[in-house]
């Protein structure tokens, strides 16, 4: 996977052009992962609190 878009200059040297868009979906995946982890954490903490609460 490319992280940076590069081009060849007129003298053959490599030059950075910008961000590689291959990584774009991974930012959405990271956002979804944080959301899912938070949902799971809230659920686990909620269960633990309900279990610890006196009847």
């Amino acid at each position, binding site marked *: 996977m490319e992280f940076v878009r590069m081009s060849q200059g007129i003298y053959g040297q490599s030059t*950075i052009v910008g*961000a590689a868009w291959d990584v*774009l979906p991974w930012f*959405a995946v990271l956002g979804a992962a944080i959301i899912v982890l938070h949902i799971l954490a809230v659920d686990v*903490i909620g269960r633990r609190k309900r279990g610890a609460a006196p009847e």
Partner: protein
Amino acid sequence: MQGRIVRHRLADRLYHWLIVAAVLTLMGTAFLPILGIKFEWDTIHWVAGLVLAAAVLFHVVRALGWLDVRAMGVGRADLVDVWRRARRLFGRGGPAPGRGGKYLLAQRAYHAYIALALLTMIVTGIMMMTKLDTPFWQRNPYWLPVESWGVVYLIHGYVAMSLITVIMVHIYFAVRPDKWWYLRSMVVGWISRGDYDAHFDPARWPATGEGEAAPGRSGLASGPAE
């Protein structure tokens, strides 16, 4: 206003929703063509960018002149609260964390990142506009050397992509049923007295007379309530 605490004034709510419109327009015009949906995006993109820059400038002036910038700071009380929450999370007991200031620590962290990201996007975006013909100037693609342009585009691109993650998480917390009263306050401006009493420490976000709370400080004013 009985039983209601003003949280966001109309100017701040309008600013927030203008930023939402500008950022979503910028992200749509940036990423949809990359995803294969082709259209004439560049004029919409730079106009939305200028709207964003103007809105952010308004917000900075308003924050410095009329709002309490310390409400977005982090103080000793916040660190003590984090420690106490962590201890309780791992079953270590100890004193309960205090109620919060006007903004949760997570909200302040979000604000810090989004402020840094938007300022970076605005600066790099205005630099990139020198490569476009606009009603204000003619393009000058040689303003920077080619290598420098690559770095500018790299920064603009990565910060833009990071906003996908950050905004997804922001929307998730805004629409969570237990947090939706925050979202409601960004629409109607107020929170209920019950939510104020349940979630906020009056020493850190004092409610004054007439049902209106002061601009608010977060962890800077006092220690956490026991």
